[in-house]
């Protein structure tokens, strides 16, 4: 731990105990992230802090009685320091994860409060949100967000039109919306699907319309949804897929799939995937054409052939041979 982190920690302890006189050693240790023994050592060290001329009451007095911590003299060190630029930037950056779908008004007021709490000693002109970015621009589907949140909060059924990429078709479904998840920058809705009679997850960008019913559904058992949350997007299906990529594109495949890749002839690689349908693997092969080759199952080889013929068909009358 460096000097800066330790000073911040000590000021945290002083301000926390000033606000919560008599907090137990255990609770304080947990808040600070120390073991109780280490905390006691830090409290001893804090008794050395003081101001000139260093008379007895010029020192910090923090003490433990019956396993509880009290501050007698805090020497005005009873509040945390203002947020440093990097700290404020970290907060503002994390808030970007909510933009623009989740409650823009509340997020805006949070941002204003944080901006006011920044210390101006460093880099007063810097605009933190211009430096590190982790969000996608706003999407047209964002408008369904608050509607679906309402459905979740009030246990109301929703009717959606959904384009499924894995089936390459659009369908009309009645959903019991359970929860919303953001993963790798994309929002998903999970709920019970009356059409498929089971829990399903829907990518926001593929939801084509949403209508909320007055009809209510019985909310699910928490255990059930937690189990699903845990495995969210992990199991892709049971169909085993093998695709060969030649040396020209192998670095990309290794970077993205790492552990599912094995070395193959001529510095190429073979990617092993498990999928529910052949739609995704076929699109993957096409996007790396002509450097990718489906190996297994035979149906995938057929599908890639058919998909590429369909594409060529679009241009057939115009292609010059």
């Amino acid at each position, binding site marked *: 731990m460096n000097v800066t982190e330790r000073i*911040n920690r000590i000021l945290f302890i002083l301000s926390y105990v000033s606000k919560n006189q008599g907090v137990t050693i255990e609770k304080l240790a947990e808040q600070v992230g120390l073991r109780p023994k280490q905390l006691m050592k830090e409290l001893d060290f804090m008794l050395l802090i003081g101001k*000139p001329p260093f008379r007895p009451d010029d020192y910090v007095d923090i003490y433990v009685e019956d396993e509880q911590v009290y501050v007698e003299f805090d020497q005005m060190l009873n509040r945390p320091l*203002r947020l440093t630029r990097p700290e404020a930037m970290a907060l503002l950056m994390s808030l970007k994860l909510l933009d623009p779908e989740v409650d823009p008004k*509340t997020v805006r007021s949070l941002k204003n409060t944080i901006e006011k709490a920044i210390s101006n000693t460093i880099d007063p002109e810097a605009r933190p949100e211009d430096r590190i970015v982790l969000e996608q621009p706003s999407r047209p589907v964002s408008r369904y967000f608050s509607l679906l949140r309402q459905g979740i909060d009030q246990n109301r059924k929703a009717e959606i039109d959904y384009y499924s990429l894995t089936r390459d078709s659009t369908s009309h479904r009645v959903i019991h919306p359970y929860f919303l998840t953001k993963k790798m920058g994309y929002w998903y809705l999970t709920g019970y699907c009356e059409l498929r009679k089971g829990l399903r997850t829907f990518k926001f960008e593929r939801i084509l319309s949403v209508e909320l019913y007055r009809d209510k559904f019985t909310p699910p058992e928490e255990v059930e949804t937690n189990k699903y949350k845990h495995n969210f997007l992990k199991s892709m299906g049971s169909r085993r897929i093998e695709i060969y990529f030649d040396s020209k594109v192998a670095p990309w495949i290794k970077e993205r799939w790492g552990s599912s890749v094995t070395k193959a002839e001529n510095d190429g690689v073979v990617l092993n995937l498990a999928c529910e349908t052949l739609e995704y693997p076929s699109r993957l092969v096409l996007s790396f054409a002509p450097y990718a080759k489906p190996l297994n199952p035979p149906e995938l080889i057929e599908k890639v052939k058919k998909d590429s013929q369909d594409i060529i068909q679009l241009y057939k009358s115009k292609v010059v041979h």
Partner: protein
Amino acid sequence: MNRTERLLDLITYLLNAREPVSWQEIKNHFPEDYARGVEESNQRKFERDKAELISLGIPIDYHSGAGVKKEGYLIEKEKLFLPEIQFTPQESSLLMLSASAVLEQEMFPYRDQLESALHKIISINEHISPPPPGITITYSGDQGSSKRAKWVKAIQDALDRRKEVKFVYHAFSTGETTRRTVNPYGLIFRRGFWALVGWDHARQDLRSFVVTRIRNLKANTRRPGTPDYEIPEGFSVKSYQNQQQWELDLHDPISVTLQISRHRLPELLPQLTTAKKTGEDTFELNVTNRSGLISWILSQKTDVRILDPSEIQNELCEVLQKMS
């Protein structure tokens, strides 16, 4: 006296002083630290301590002695401490939702800073609400490794202090591995990977670098307290966030017109922010990487169709014919 103790004593001293404190007074009260040996080295030691305090966000003002105030150093309480901020339950709940997504990820830059910011906020807020139950956010992917986490943090640190970085880069598009010297301007999280955007010294231009393709990164260690460069005014890393495959600068621009199936528009529109909309479902793109464009079109199968020019149509068909 050890450094932590000395710095905390200095804060306590300057904070409790009724009037500015002169250098002579500081020396008198800290004789072991600032009044031994050569005056010049004592002054330098004090300057280093002051810089450390400033980096903590502690404003040490120097009053020149003009007007009513005496000459010397002072810390103003209002500038030092976090103002009284009380969040509404709704606000703290959303803050916890977004913060917990970041804290879960070891690799995230500013993770440590986020933790200390939350510490400060929690210590003065009576009640912090848990995240709303109907929403979860996760950033975990399987691309994380502790080595890369280290590099993202090192780049973030260099970016904060404006220090030049040197590294070995494996460019996938050319297959070449070269040594680069870069002034970091920004970091972006794009399609599951972190990328550094900065000024490439050899290329004399802005470039972006995927962090997983970086090896042996070292930040300039000379003069750690002095920035090596300034980020030009008007630069924003945002424009790189949504950069598409066909926008990589690999050849002279060509204009390509595409038609997109209606049911795919909600999903594909955000990728076309720089394209010109020429009709209900037609878009004109400025393409500087045609193979990137073809790869993207093929992954959309028949949902994206090239209307113009025919040379790109032919190229796409040739790619498919080569495969079979």
